[in-house]
């Protein structure tokens, strides 16, 4: 037996959550299928005019990504809360923020990253140009971690509450609006020939801010919810 460092703990939590996700593949797949379905429903709802679809594509993809990440956030802490693992995590001699960061990273890899990978294929359905697709992917890569991190605060606050899922969306969606604006704005910018970098750098700035503050805030929220 040897003592482990803070970084070991982070790796441990990420690995554990990934293993668990691999053994419960259905959960991961449902989120992904939901994303694909929501995006595919839009053309059916608004009609197949390619011009309009091309214009709508970034917004539709981003909103769908937002909704499907809400869907998976409900489970972020609840399974650990129910079986008592969360109690043990809070008693960990390392900082709880680090553990929370680990869970955020794992959540993103399980529910955010697949969306990023599927998004270009869905973008083709909307006849998006190649450079627009590129910007969309970069935007999603920068933005979906923010959704996981901000969402984690909501997941921690609504831990164990009745109607937790709907409540979670109600709390978190307004907070995610800037991500949506900059993310889809970047794609709009590239299609209209404007500079993309301001949007993306703002998204990056939000990501840094979220990285700096959300783990700590989520840890506090967990402490409040465990009382």
């Amino acid at each position, binding site marked *: *037996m040897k*003592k482990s460092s803070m970084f*070991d*703990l982070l790796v*441990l939590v990420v690995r554990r959550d990934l293993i668990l996700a691999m053994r419960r593949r259905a959960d991961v797949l449902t989120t992904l299928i939901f994303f694909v379905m929501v995006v595919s429903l839009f053309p059916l709802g608004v009609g197949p005019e390619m011009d309009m679809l091309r214009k709508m594509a970034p917004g539709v993809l981003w909103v769908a990504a937002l909704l499907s990440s809400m869907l998976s956030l409900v489970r972020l802490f609840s399974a650990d809360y129910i*079986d008592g693992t969360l109690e*043990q995590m809070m*008693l*960990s001699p*390392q900082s709880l923020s680090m553990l929370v960061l680990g869970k955020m990273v794992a959540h993103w890899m399980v529910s955010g990253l697949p969306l990023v990978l599927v998004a270009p294929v869905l973008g083709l359905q909307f006849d998006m140009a190649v450079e627009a697709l590129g910007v969309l992917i970069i935007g999603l890569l920068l933005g979906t971690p923010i959704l996981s991190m901000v969402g984690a605060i909501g997941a921690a606050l609504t831990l164990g509450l009745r109607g937790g899922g709907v409540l979670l969306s109600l709390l978190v969606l307004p907070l995610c609006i800037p991500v949506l604006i900059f993310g889809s704005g970047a794609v709009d910018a590239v299609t209209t020939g404007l500079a993309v970098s301001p949007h993306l750098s703002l998204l990056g700035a939000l990501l840094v801010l979220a990285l700096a503050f959300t783990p700590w805030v989520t840890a506090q929220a967990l402490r409040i919810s465990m009382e």
Partner: protein
Amino acid sequence: MLEVSNLACSRGDHRLFSGLSFTLSPGQIMQVQGANGSGKTSLLRTLCGFLMPDEGDIAWRGENIRSLDEDYCAEMMYLGHLNAIKDELSAVENLRISAGLSGLDLSDREAIAALRRMGLKGKERLPTKVLSQGQRRRVALSRMLVNDAKLWILDEPLAALDVVAVALIQELIAEHLAQQGLVMFTTHQPLEVAGMDICNLTLS
């Protein structure tokens, strides 16, 4: 070592207990007694730092546990009602992860040795969802073998265990006390530790 003074706790509007004071020194064991709903679990959870007491102070080595925070967590092990094990993971994985969460890097071999001692030989690699209730509890309790915590806080450690396992747990507690450890526990089954007086704390 663990000093509790004038502690008061409530759940919602209901005052569970107040003015509770006691001291636990190395090598001592204390049983918390009381009827259902008298606040046994709340007291243990307060000692873990999950619940904030309404009044009073909990000190470890003379310092408040809130200010010690992570240093206190490093010296304390809590086993609650909930097993904190994942159905999808095997017994070894569960044990290694829970040891990892408490800051210990456990090798496969050490984990298997601990599980064997808990009487889970041959079941180390099975996913815990195929194990019985008592066997899962054993997986959870095998953490008692692989930690270096000074203070053990055990909430109903004997629930769902058979006679053999109860004897083993008593043996482990005796070993821990012999190494100048501290134990606080609740139980509804009789628990005897050879050659030790158990202090009683009764909540009404």
